């Protein structure tokens, strides 16, 4: 029983990092209706910048964090310009494939910059366990949870209490209508993209700091987790992304303790596959309307 709760708590904490990744994914998908598969690699680019600075220039953890976030934001801008801006509303697949191509670029660039597979990453705080009753929490995991909650809260505030957030919500709801009422949609989408990349940078920093290392596999890993978490929670829904991340973390932790890391990954992908084939995009009623809308769009 204690194990069960411990695993669940661990899962929630790991899930909070997934939630942040999913949040960034969702912000981009919600505003652009397209998947950014270079999302994880964008974060990784920032993390590599941070590692480079820390190892070669000896910079401390907090400035590294800033570097990671800024780096991710800048690379995000590059992705937005190359893979998303040139395409109109319809070309969903083109952006997705293009972002995959950029993923290839970023992964190779990272390997060129830091040829070693494993690179040390400065920890932010100790990973020493804190005991609370019969349960143990790693301090850095706890920090992750707190930061994720704060970021989620800030994003909520931004979305619902700022003009920018209002713009984002209108673009998510109906881009053409937003354009027609004068919302600067291109700028909003670009800003949302940069915001999403920055959030990813925060998550990336905390994850890498917690692991104490960064490898070129991080890009793929982050994209995978963000994607699965977002789909679990319901494509394009902000609260869904957060919930999906937490759920994925919990499921994974239990799966790992029962079956080991490979089956854990198998289940994560299997979950995505199941959600896609049986419950794509959520509510039942929207599916028929979505089909009619698809017919309409082609007419």
């Amino acid at each position: 029983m204690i194990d069960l709760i411990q695993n669940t708590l661990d899962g929630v904490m790991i899930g909070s990092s997934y939630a942040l990744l999913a949040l960034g994914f969702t912000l981009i998908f919600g505003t652009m209706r397209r998947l950014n598969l270079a999302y994880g690699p964008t974060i990784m680019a920032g993390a590599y910048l941070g590692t480079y600075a820390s190892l070669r220039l000896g910079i401390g953890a907090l400035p590294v964090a800033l570097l990671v976030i800024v780096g991710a934001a800048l690379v995000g801008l590059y992705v937005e310009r190359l893979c998303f801006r040139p395409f109109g509303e319809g070309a969903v697949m083109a952006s997705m494939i293009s972002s995959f191509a950029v993923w290839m670029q970023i992964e190779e660039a990272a390997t060129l910059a830091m040829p070693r597979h494993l690179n040390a990453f400065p920890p932010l705080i100790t990973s020493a366990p804190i005991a609370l009753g019969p349960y143990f929490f790693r301090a850095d995991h706890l920090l992750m949870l707190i930061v994720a909650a704060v970021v989620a809260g800030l994003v909520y505030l931004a979305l619902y209490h700022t003009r920018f957030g209002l713009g984002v919500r209108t673009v998510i709801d109906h881009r053409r209508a937003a354009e027609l009422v004068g919302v600067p949609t291109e700028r909003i989408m670009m800003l949302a993209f940069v915001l999403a990349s920055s959030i990813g940078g925060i998550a990336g920093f905390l994850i890498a700091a917690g692991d104490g290392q960064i490898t070129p596999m991080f890009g793929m890993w982050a994209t995978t987790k963000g994607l699965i978490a977002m789909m679990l929670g319901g494509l394009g829904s902000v609260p869904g992304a957060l919930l999906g991340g937490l759920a994925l973390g919990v499921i994974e932790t239990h799966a790992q303790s029962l079956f080991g890391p490979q089956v854990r990954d198998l289940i994560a992908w299997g979950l995505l596959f199941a959600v896609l084939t049986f419950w794509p995009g959520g509510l039942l009623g929207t599916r028929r309307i979505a089909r009619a809308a698809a017919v309409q769009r082609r007419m």
Partner: protein
Amino acid sequence: MLLQLEGLTVRFGGVEALRALDLSLAPGHSLGLMGPNGCGKTTLFNVISGLVRPDSGRVVFRGDDITRSAVHDIARRGIARTFQTIRLFPQMTVRDNVRPAAAQGSPGEETQIVERALVQVGLAAKRDTLADELSLGEQRRLEIARALARSPHLVLMDEPTAGLDSEETDELVELIADAVLPASGLILIEHKPDVIAALCPMAVLLDQGHKMTEAPPADLFASEAFRSAYLGVIVRPVPQS
């Protein structure tokens, strides 16, 4: 009866696009379909071709209930359709656009059928041109050739003269009268009264999914229902005292 629509109702979310619509068409006849934008004309075509399932009602074609049939099945039964905005395979040649999906006899026979359709619409010389290199008028004729090649029993045309000038409109009307009318039934959506008058002995007025009137074109255009559907009810100004 070639086509019979019984009590068709279609709802999209909260909006009723079609309301208990009844319609029938005898073989070889042509029917005009008019009404303001958003009154359900295109939805009606979508229901007949099978792209949209009605919430209630039936579509009966040549005695068979095709309400829930698959789109490709309905097409193979002999219902052809053109679109308001041109819809072709842009990167395929004119000839490949016209060639039917289902085999029509031997390859030699099929080539003849395709050739005949192209000649009828006047595009035989352009048979190897890519579809998106044609002019708008030529593309409209290509759509008609595509319909003709399948020798359909029923053709549904959705504003075929949209975007054409008056000379091109007259040419297209002549083409429809010469090539389509003699061979199949026709339901024609159009906003231009002269086009309807030239091609259809009867016309139906739709407003907000409801069949308001069914009458010969001349009578329809003169009716109060026609005027209020297209122009709305004219509110009398309050007299100034």
